């Protein structure tokens, strides 16, 4: 059906909603008007708001001597390490896990380890993964009723890392990545359309008609395909279905205000793909908006990909390759210089993470704030990078997941399996599986010390 009358005294959205009429809308956006209780602290039926999940990944690892807090314990018993000092103000929400080792054999530098901490299993030698990443285990549980069922996926640096996992940290399975979006401007446009603050265009119905035709083509094609291609085509159809749902959501309109326009707020943020604080801030604003509005409850944020070769100019580290000069300490200025530069780079990276956590903390959500109701899993592609270590791995959680995670803890468990961290995350979000990972990376128990 197509809207024929473009001139109407009724608000356009009202008209368009009427056209949607009694059609089954598969998208019960929680943040529509009337979906929350009178105080906006819970859903209208009284149930608490659902927690949000985000994987925050940075390439090139961390040095245990710089990353791991000196003392372990809860509350005043521990203090952030130098690497984590940019996160000091969020200490009540931090859970630092140290001493954990990646147990899968390091067959492929910068591939085996990130695959293990994201999926619990060994990488494939082409740099792909064998299993779904933790965000894609959580998405079907938490996110199916949102505008982005597979989550939102953003990235800061678009510089390659020697082919390790390509640029990706989110995988539905082998050969099925969710590549990051490097453009805050494009994400803004997408979120703006869903925000309910702009009048929807009647042409939305034209898009729906086209997508229906594309779906019909795909259905006819599917019958001719082998098993591998059917999986790929089905994933394509998921994307078509997501677009159709988003059109419905745009017509209905959310009730979340307007997202921050990165071109207005951060015009000097640098080109898409560059490592700048401004780009971290722009994406932090947009992810906060998307989480707050529950346009998605799952997201990933790649600061830099595994073994990323980008420079960190804003950190005062010049235009040289951070991976090479500092991660591998191959600077002509020597190893001390390399070590110091590496530490500077990691602290700069945590500063970018702080931009996200600050906005989460400062955004009311339910009876608390968005950081209270989120869990951010922070990790990397390697431990101490200059010898490609996989022990005492950088593993950090931020947020309290709606009160399930206690926070303000440094828990040290030397030699333990790093997969227990994503296993714990999976269980916090209600994952039914009894185990996480495969082979040497598989675990069947979490870390109760992190939980309330």
């Amino acid at each position, binding site marked *: 059906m*197509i809207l*024929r009358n473009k001139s109407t005294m009724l608000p356009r959205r009202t008209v368009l909603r009427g056209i949607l009429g009694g059609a089954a809308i598969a998208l019960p956006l929680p943040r529509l008007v009337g979906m929350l209780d009178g105080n906006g602290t819970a859903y209208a039926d009284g149930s608490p708001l659902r927690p949000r999940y985000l994987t925050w990944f940075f390439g090139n690892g961390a040095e245990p001597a710089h990353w791991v807090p000196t003392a372990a314990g809860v509350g005043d018993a521990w203090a952030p390490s130098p690497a984590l000092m940019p996160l000091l103000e969020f200490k009540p929400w931090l859970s630092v896990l140290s001493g954990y080792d990646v147990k899968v*054999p390091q*067959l*492929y*530098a*910068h*591939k085996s380890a990130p695959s293990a901490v994201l999926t619990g299993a*060994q990488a*494939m*030698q082409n*740099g792909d993964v064998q299993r779904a990443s933790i965000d894609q285990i959580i998405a079907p549980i938490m996110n199916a009723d949102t505008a982005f069922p*597979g989550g939102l*996926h953003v990235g800061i640096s678009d*510089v390659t890392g*020697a*082919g*390790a996992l*390509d640029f990706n940290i989110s995988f539905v399975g*082998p*050969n*099925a*990545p*969710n*590549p990051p*979006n490097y453009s805050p401007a494009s994400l803004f446009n*997408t979120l703006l359309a869903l925000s309910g603050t702009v009048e929807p265009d*009647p042409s939305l*119905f*034209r898009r729906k*008609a*086209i997508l229906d035709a*594309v779906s*019909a*083509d795909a259905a006819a094609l599917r019958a*001719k*395909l*082998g098993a*591998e*291609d059917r999986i*790929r085509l089905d994933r*394509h159809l*998921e*994307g078509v279905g997501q*677009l159709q749902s988003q059109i419905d959501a745009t017509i209905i309109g959310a009730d979340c205000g307007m997202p921050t326009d990165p071109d207005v707020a951060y015009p000097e943020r640098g080109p898409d793909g560059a490592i700048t604080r401004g780009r971290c801030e722009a994406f932090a604003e947009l992810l906060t908006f998307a989480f707050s509005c529950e346009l998605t409850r799952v997201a990933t944020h790649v600061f830099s990909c595994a*073994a990323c*070769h980008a*420079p960190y100019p804003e950190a005062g580290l010049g*235009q*040289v*390759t951070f991976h*090479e000069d500092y991660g591998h300490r*191959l600077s*002509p*200025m020597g*190893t001390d*210089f390399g070590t110091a530069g590496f530490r500077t780079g990691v602290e700069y990276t945590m500063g970018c993470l702080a931009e996200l956590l600050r906005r989460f903390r400062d955004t009311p959500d339910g009876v608390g704030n968005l950081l209270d109701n989120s869990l951010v899993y922070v990790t990397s592609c390697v431990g101490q990078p*200059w*010898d*490609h270590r996989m022990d005492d791995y950088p593993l950090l959680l931020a947020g309290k997941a709606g009160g399930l995670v206690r926070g303000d803890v440094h828990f040290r468990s030397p030699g333990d399996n790093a997969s227990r961290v994503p296993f714990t995350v999976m269980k916090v979000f209600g994952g039914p599986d009894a185990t996480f990972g495969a082979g040497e990376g598989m675990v069947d128990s979490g870390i109760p010390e992190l939980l309330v």
Partner: protein
Amino acid sequence: MSRRLLSSRAPLLALALVPSFACYSGLTATAEGEGPGDGGTDLTGADSGDDPGGDSGDGAELLEVDPPTMRRLTRAEFTHAVHDLLGAVTMPMVEADSVHEGFFSVGAARVALSPAGVASYELALEAATAQAFNDPSDAATLVACMPSGPADTACIRESIAAFGRRAWRRPLDADEVDRYVAIAEEVGGETGDGVQALRHALWGLLQSPYFLYRVELGSPSAPDGGRLKFSSHEMASRLAFTLWSTLPDEALLDAADADELASAEGIRSQVDRMLADPRARQGVANFIGELYSLWKLDEKTKDPDAYPVWTPTLQAAIRDEMIARIEHVVFDAPTDFFSLYDGREVFVNNELAALYGLPAAVPDDFRLETLPEGDPRRGLIGSALLLAMNSLPARTSATERGVFISETLLCKTVPPPPPNVDVDLDDDGDGGPVEHQTLRDKLEPHVSNPACAGCHNLTDPLGLALEHFDTTGRYRETDLGLTIDASGDLDGMPFNDAAELAVLLREHPDAPYCLVKKLYTYSAGRAPLLVEDGLLATIEGELTDGDNRFDALLVSMITHDDFRFANPAGTVVGVDQGDGQ
């Protein structure tokens, strides 16, 4: 020299696997990844099986071959195709390609599009069709018939059928035409605008999987032993994307309509015309761009203080030069492709001429020049592009340069570094600024440490031969005052410098084989199987018979049976693993 062809395409279910990986020289297992030590090894015959490390086993290997898969148009193919259909429109980027086996074209046959990727196509094609239809008089040149109004259904139907045939590389059936006519009718009814009605129908046709994927699956052919035979229309698509990196033209589709492309003879009847078409340059450039990973030039930074010469205009010139060199030997003055490997002909503007030590010219045209006899710069490995692409921001990289030569030109395998290796090469004990050493001295631990030597001996000696060229590709007599030793050996053949290495590369017996293998991988969308070694040898022979001309290689590649047939699902092939390990 041992040659064994081992596939890393996963179409294979290894029923018995060969021994697990180690560092092998001279084998032809494929390697993924681009960086030193970050490449992968594949001696298992599968790069995406459940056994990433390989398994132990001996004797014969039985492998089950997957049927052909759809191939998503790569970003380049998508752009070329849209430009063919709609003119030189601009579009937002669509989802990134994935590199498998060193090629986007292989990733395109394997990797699924994400939901965000589907949205990126809708957005890109909305922009493309809006631009193309912004001026109806321009749009009229793109379609068979421009509707006089929304009720001009016959005209709209004609345009949809014609545009769809071109975009989908086959005639649409009646239901398909009806489906998109219905869109036009709805939009026409809403807007009263026949042009917009047609534009929306075309926007839809271009979002269809029949446009976005190369659906070339073949059908079982009893006269051919049950093998899958590609139809004439599938062949039109295969020919066009292989030779032109874009859609078939009307002539090719007409030949397909007449079922003339199902035979080698029918294909040969198209080849001369296709290779003479300007789009053949686009096709060869796309292959070279993927083979040499030219896309990475965009992310190559150089220390601006140390190398102010590294300007955007220089980067554009060195990219243009590589394509010009290729086009020169393939199209403009067709000759032995491997003359590229040790040739002295370069293409420069004044900025690049300065880098190459050549005089400026007036006017500053992009021009063919010949480096003087005795110039240390020679061949592909002397091109600024390959020297700069395989270097670090402030330094050269013997390892990256060596990996390029070993893997890309000679198809050797360079495995990843062993676990927990300490890669500190500059550690002189006190942690302070390092006394300058030549790169050869710095890399000495690669030779003295057995854990490093096995693989770095494949790469470093070749890369060190290029030490007379800095990270931008500019010649230097010394390295900060230290004497450069550029000597080494390639598979037992000694050389004194880069120019001598260039000659050895041209003469290397594996060079033709490697080029054949790379082009096969690119065109097939998968690495060749072990059992296809004989086929590659045949093509290599035809390349030799064709005086090593690249057009001869292309003709051979697209006229052999394997280009017209594929193995059906469940085909099991046996591979003798008895030698070459």
